[in-house]
């Protein structure tokens, strides 16, 4: 059962489109879906003022069986998949901020780029983005405690990620095929963050648990980590790296026991400073 939403006109202001979620569609007739409330800037509007909505005349009660396809999408559409607990959303184009905010199950696939706070505070399910994403993917909100970010589920990013990737996450997994910017995996308490490319400064800063893996170059390492070992190869979440990795434990600033693993060959100049400590401990 799939609904096709096609953007009619290009929006100029941010749109609060939290009604675009299988949970909101469930049990409604097509006319009711067309009249779902959205906010265009500060003004109230209905779904059919921006989208042409096509699909079955009556949606099933179970959100799991609902698929929503957004065509011709724009990066002004925020809160898509807000608190969804099942079903599937496929976006052909870009999405705005807070995509998949607090989602607990189901999947979102974006054939484009996403802006900030992708999968913010998500509890389960999966998000796949084929383009780049903005800052704080899988993160928490400002002012919240560490561990209040993403709690479960997976986010797969095929492009690059912005800074504060998985900020304050308390579980789940984020896999980035490209590069990440500064503070990847900052303040995480649990969960796994894998960056296949390079990362900016201070990956894993303030982490108190969990695992951060950087397969490429790191711009700078936080001095608050201590080295544990150098492993010849690594396999994490089904991704194998056939090169040596240095394993760090930290961040001592938050008395953490998190694991930070960065590629040895790409970061020789950084890790060689630590190497003397490694030999001493052996």
């Amino acid at each position, binding site marked *: 059962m799939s609904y096709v939403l096609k953007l009619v006109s290009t929006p100029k202001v941010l749109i609060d489109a939290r009604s675009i979620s299988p949970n909101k569609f469930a049990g409604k007739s097509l006319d009711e879906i067309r009249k779902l409330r959205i906010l265009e800037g*500060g003004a109230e509007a209905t779904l059919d003022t921006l989208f042409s909505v096509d699909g079955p005349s009556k949606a099933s009660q179970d959100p799991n069986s609902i698929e929503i396809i957004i065509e011709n999408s724009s990066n002004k559409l925020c809160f898509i998949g807000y608190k969804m607990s099942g079903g599937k959303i496929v976006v052909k184009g870009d999405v705005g901020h807070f995509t998949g905010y607090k989602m607990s199950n189901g999947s979102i696939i974006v054939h484009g780029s996403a802006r900030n706070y992708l999968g913010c505070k998500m509890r389960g399910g999966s998000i796949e983005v084929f383009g780049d994403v903005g800052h704080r993917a899988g993160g928490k909100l*400002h*002012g919240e405690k560490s561990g209040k970010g993403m709690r479960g589920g997976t986010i797969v990013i095929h492009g690059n990620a912005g800074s504060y990737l998985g900020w304050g996450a308390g579980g789940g997994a984020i896999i980035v095929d490209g590069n990440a910017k500064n503070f990847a995996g900052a303040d995480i308490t649990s969960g796994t963050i894998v960056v296949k490319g390079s990362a900016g400064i201070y990956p894993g800063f303030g982490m108190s648990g969990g695992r951060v893996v950087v397969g490429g170059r790191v711009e700078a390492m936080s001095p608050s980590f201590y080295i544990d070992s150098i492993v010849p190869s690594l396999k994490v979440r089904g991704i194998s790296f056939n090169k040596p990795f240095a394993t760090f434990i930290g961040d001592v600033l938050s008395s953490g026991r998190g694991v930070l693993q960065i590629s040895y060959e790409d970061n020789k100049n950084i890790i060689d400073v630590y190497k003397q400590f490694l030999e001493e401990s052996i």
Partner: protein
Amino acid sequence: MEILIRNGIVFDPLNNIKGEVMDIAIKNGKIVDPKEIDESKAVVVDAKNKVVMAGGIDIHSHIAGPKVNVGRMIRPEDHYLTNKPHKLPYTRAETGLTVPNAYRIGYGYARLGYTFVVEPATPPIKTRHTHHELNSIPIIDKAAYVLVDSNWIVLDLIKEGKKDLLVAYLAWLLYATKTYSLKLVDPGSDVAWVLRGRGIDIDEEIPFYGITPKEIITAVAEAAQVINIPHKVHIHCNRLGYPGNYVTTLKTMTLSESVKRLAPGPAMHITHVQFTGYKGDSWATLESGGEEIAKELNRNPNATLDLGQVILGRPATTMTADAPFEFVLYHLTRWKWASSDTEIDSASGIVPYRYRKKSYVNTIQWVIGLEIALLANDLWRVFITTDHPNAGTFFDYPKIFAWLVSKKAREDTMKEVNQRALRKSVLPSIDREYSLYDIAIVTRASPAKLLGVESFKGHLGIGADADVAIYDINPNEVDISKNYDVFIKAFSRAWMVIKSGEIVVKEGEVVKTVYGKTFYVKPEIPEDVEKNLMSYLEPAFKQYYTVALDNFVIGKHEIRNPFEVSIKTHLR
């Protein structure tokens, strides 16, 4: 505008009306005899099968001032995603949950049917800011209590034994800051904390000054008697938030008997007593001291108290001028805190908190407030507050009403809370249930009496201000002690609220924005006393404050809709 409310079920304790079906007529912002109204021109409201009460009065709610603003700043997560866009032409954007913006405070209270709210602690030097914030809160009437507990000039005057000068200074301060009453927060402990790093009990000596908090409380309470302000003195007890502090509270309450009285009525108000009603030696052995405090309240007619009832499972932001306690609380929560310090007056701390249902300590805290409310014999001396936003937000007041009117509501909540804590309390054995009339007493009539505005607020008699709340519930059909859900729903969204003769809320939605009055007292000070005071104050101000005396005084023009309450003092 003329309004006629037809056939409402009226609860009006000040006029002794217990659920009679009556007509209420409103003309020019006042309640008048229904005969005076021309029915063809008036707006007729059919309130058949609906409860009609006067507008609610909240005597203690942190709605404005420096600490509220700091609370807003350190809690961005409280404002995230709570934005309600503005709706022209009536409402402004609303945001925030535990520390909402000024508009949400006004609209939120109006939706509950409250029309008069008092900000309970404003340091003198920052009261200008408090008034700026109060000015922007829509709909409700406002007032503020001024903090005098750690003011160096007050402490100096008490230390030097200059009682007449103290009275004159407090009277001048009330008018200079345009506030309504005096507030004491953990008297003397700011000084003790700065010099020794800990709070003190009421018998201990304050370092440097050599006086005890007891002397401060007595001196200020007696000064309040001489100034003759309607609400005498608002006391936040010493050792707040420490296990075993109920003894301090009892001692403070008994102090009210030794105060030299010049006027009838209660001499002291003990505020958010839940935070100062802990029995036991440590957090692990904490027990409820609610029974003892209720007993003392029943015995001692000179003291009044409000609850500071905890709402479990909802976020809160603790903020108080008791900075030492907030510092301790920060170490318990280990998250974040902020301190807002002012010159010579006071300091305050802000710590976000969440009361958990399964927590032993939080359950005891929840129990204490309800025990006191249910064991008190004289409802005219008990007030319902959550000490917003310390123990919960004011949005949850209907939940407290439900716990009071319905044993079933309490039992349903008790199933979810910490059972070990419940076994140590008497709450499960209390059968008492408030009636709607009792609710009208604790939320309307007695607060009006306590604030000394019972002649024109808190009732629906002829001549009163036309602040009316109508709730869509029929107590003759619905048994509120069984169907408490219906009761909560009705009281969370008032069916209609009338403020100063204007309909401001209809079916839980704000339809019109008006701005209420700000109440403050003007004690009359004889000329020679004032001259004497100024000769003392001018050098003291130069010595202590960075502000000149002339700039300290808040002008009447700085207040939107000022309402002056003139007072005949006993100053000679």
